[in-house]
């Protein structure tokens, strides 16, 4: 079977660190939001008490900020030095939402309700773009409010006191949104939906099988064939190591996230 490169090594590494730091942030932060739940107290104790959970939270925050900064710098490098900004800002390789995404979503929903054929997608689907921009939004809102709460005395030199009330609120609510979204919707879209269940290792191996590219991303395959770039993106099959890493580290994170999601849903409903 032939394989094509979907994610570069840098993108895969960034995703792993994003995934690990996100899970670390979630597990060390959620006990505060659900402080009245027995599982939150148990989790806080497991992490060595709230002080050590706070240290874990800050270490993971720094890792995530580095991941974010690394990605932004990489994009800036591509735009400025590689003069690639046109492809970054528009077209099928761009993460910027396009009119096509609205059509894609419309057709997808029509298929859901049995009113149309199953659509196929180009390189980035509308839900993948949503995930991507949700992280951007989250980085500014959660990261920004988190820094405010980390260094309140410093920020109080130029911000009014009520900003810290708002920071506490949005940090928690946005975190709940992000964690709830990633551990259920993103997990389903990327891994748990019947076509991928129990998981899709493409984000760890970086390689997509030719069959899948042809079937699920027909416009991309057709476009690459037309542009003559298929050969350039052809890659050897995923290595055993990258697959094993995906199964164990990625799969482990899936299980951990799913358990967390169940606890959150249980606590919110209760």
């Amino acid at each position: 079977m032939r394989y094509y490169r979907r994610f570069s090594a840098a993108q895969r590494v960034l995703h792993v660190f994003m995934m690990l730091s996100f899970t670390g942030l979630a597990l060390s932060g959620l006990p505060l939001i659900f402080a009245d739940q027995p599982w939150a107290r148990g989790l806080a104790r497991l992490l060595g008490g709230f002080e050590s959970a706070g240290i874990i939270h800050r270490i993971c925050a720094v890792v995530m900020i580095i991941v974010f900064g690394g990605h932004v710098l990489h994009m800036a490098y591509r735009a400025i030095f590689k003069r690639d900004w046109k492809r970054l800002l528009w077209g099928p390789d761009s993460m910027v939402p396009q009119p096509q995404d609205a059509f894609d979503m419309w057709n997808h929903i029509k298929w859901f309700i049995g009113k149309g054929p199953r659509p196929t997608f180009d390189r980035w689907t509308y839900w993948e773009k949503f995930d991507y921009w949700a992280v951007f939004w989250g980085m500014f809102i959660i990261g920004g409010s988190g820094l405010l709460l980390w260094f309140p005395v410093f920020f109080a030199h130029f911000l009014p006191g009520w900003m810290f009330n708002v920071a506490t609120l949005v940090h928690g609510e946005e975190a709940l949104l992000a964690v709830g979204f990633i551990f259920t919707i993103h997990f389903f879209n990327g891994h748990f939906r019947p076509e991928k269940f129990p998981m899709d290792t493409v984000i760890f191996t970086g390689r997509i099988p030719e069959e899948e590219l042809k079937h699920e991303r027909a416009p991309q395959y057709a476009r690459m064939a037309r542009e003559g770039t298929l050969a350039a993106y052809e890659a050897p099959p995923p290595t055993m190591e990258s697959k094993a890493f995906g199964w164990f580290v990625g799969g482990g994170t899936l299980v951990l996230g799913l358990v967390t999601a169940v606890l959150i849903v249980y606590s919110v409903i209760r």
Partner: protein
Amino acid sequence: MSPLPLLLRTLAMLMFAASVAAADPNETCLACHADKDAKGSSGASIAVDTGKFAKSVHGEAKLACTACHADVSPKTIPHPEKLKPVDCGTCHDKPVAEYKATVHGVARKGGSQAAATCVDCHGKHDIQRNKDPSSRTHHDNLEATCATCHAKESMKGQAKMPGGAVASQFHDSIHGKALAGAARSAAPTCTNCHGAHDIRAKDDDKSRVNRAKVPDTCGSCHTKQRQQYAGGKHGKVRQEGNLGSPGCTDCHSAHGIQAPNTPAFRAKVMAECGTCHANYMETYRETFHGQVTNLGYTSVATCASCHGAHDIRPASDPASMVSPQNRPATCMKCHQGATVSFAGWDPHANKHDAARNPVYFYMALFMKWLLIGVFSFFGLHTVLWLYRSLRAMKGEAR
């Protein structure tokens, strides 16, 4: 036993008694009662430890047995087996009169056989002065003396003890621990709070532990705290006659008082604040401080960290720790370098109060609908997708 030896014994006793009666009336009594093995007809011991009696306060005073056992005369020996109870009030008229109004005295009058009388605390033939370290009523021994009844769970059935068997609570309290330490003479024991001959039920107005009296009772030692309390809001509300306002024991408990700086106490006392100030507890729980304490850690600010303990004053009082003037200094206790702007943070910001916290109010509303919006849309998106995918796979399988 045949009747003859008994008759002989009685005769011998009578002769012996008559021979010594003139010298010391107690010798007549001790002729029988000094015998360690002497028993009444019921088989119960009637022995009197002469050595202990001689060292007792009554023995030192060379009191005659008949001074207490007034219905016995050395002239009519053997005396009737059933004697009247000793009336300590013959001499100790004042304490006995006081006793009758105590919780023990009232219970006795009401027919209780369990309530303590004079002898239960003071002993019988071995009564010592309070000052004597071997006395049951010496400061160091009172805890054990009261505990003979108040440590027994079984006592709860026999006597009305609202606090239950409190002795172990007291023993493990800061007062109990102090009593076991080097400074025991300065530590309070049971009678310091409850009194001795004036122990009264706490619902009795005259009781030292009556709700209205507790601040003064504790304040007899804790004078500084008593003063602070009087200046604080809780104390002032008390002075206006509202006894619902918390006194010492509402936060500190009565018998199980713990050192105020322990995490357990800091957590417990916060819950106490919440019983009245529920709305403030709710908004506190939304802050980082409130979340951390809810997890069971008390190294962050609790109620008392900002409001004080004994002299809690309203924010409108310039002397209050949370008055606008003092707020930065209060924050600075933990947050070095805290500014006026820093202290503008609202520790009780309310999501539902647009007048008090406008931005917070609208952000909370926005966040709520953002979450509802995103989860509703993608929730439905996911459910529909799952349904369609499963149907599509089934179709392919067929």
